[in-house]
């Protein structure tokens, strides 16, 4: 498993864990004492792990160490291209769905927009990680680094 695959798995695990733990924490909290914003702080705290990626998966140092080859670069480029195309489609769907579902004369809370941005960022991370893992496939031939 090379560096890109490790990063992709790390992204997926952290995001999935943060969603599951936050949902559980909010559900338990609502059941015990009602809703508060503490659950969302759990979410942010777990997601902060994503910022430790450069320290956890360091690039190999030294002249004889190979970080990535042409195939890895192509896979990452194709994943990035795919994720941005997907984001564009989701962006269009989100804008029109909100407009159609709520109705043109109604309004939405402003917090919806930053939430959409955060959701979009998570969506990008998930899709790019899945795209990288799918392109590498199940086998691990020649992917050690």
């Amino acid at each position, binding site marked *: 498993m090379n560096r890109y695959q490790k990063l992709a798995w790390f992204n997926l695990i952290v995001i999935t864990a943060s969603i599951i733990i936050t949902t559980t924490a909010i559900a338990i909290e609502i059941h015990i004492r009602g809703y508060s914003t503490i659950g969302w702080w759990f979410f942010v705290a777990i997601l902060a792990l994503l910022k430790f990626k450069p320290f956890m998966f360091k690039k190999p140092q030294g002249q004889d160490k190979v970080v990535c080859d042409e195939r890895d670069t192509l896979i990452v480029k194709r994943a990035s291209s795919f994720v941005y195309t997907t984001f564009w489609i989701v962006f269009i769907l989100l804008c029109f769905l909100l407009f159609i579902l709520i109705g043109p004369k109604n*309004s939405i809370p402003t917090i919806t927009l930053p939430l959409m941005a955060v959701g979009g*960022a998570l969506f990008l991370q998930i899709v790019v990680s899945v795209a990288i893992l799918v392109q590498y496939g199940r086998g691990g031939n020649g992917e050690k680094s």
Partner: protein
Amino acid sequence: MNQTKVEAWIYFFLGLSCFLIPGGVAVFIAYDRGISFLPVFMFAGIVVWGGLFWLFPFICGKLSKGKKKVSFDERDQLIHKKAVMVAYIVLWLYFVAVSVIAWCIVGPYGSISVNVMPLTLLGGLVIFNVVQGLATLIQYGWGGKGEKS
């Protein structure tokens, strides 16, 4: 000037004028007099026009197919890919900026009209086309060596 460069100029100028001017006028009318038939009709026209604009490369491709000329090589493809990627990155930054700016202006407990969403989309469409055209033109540079087709 090759076909890709011509397309980039068309996207940049015609797209900008066809999207930005009617879009700006429609936003102004909607802001000044409220939502009525005219701005909605203008938005619908822009969306339809934008949709037709995406057919432009295919139509150009079909028209130039019979000429048996090479109009798109690996370099053009690379430039196109890079331009699209830059446009997507700017689109993402625009989306984040719009979300945060609206939140900051109105305040965390305020509310905004849902009409902002299609407007955001329209702005994204304009920015995407303009940035893609601009990035293509910048990559080709000012010179025209070997770009005749």
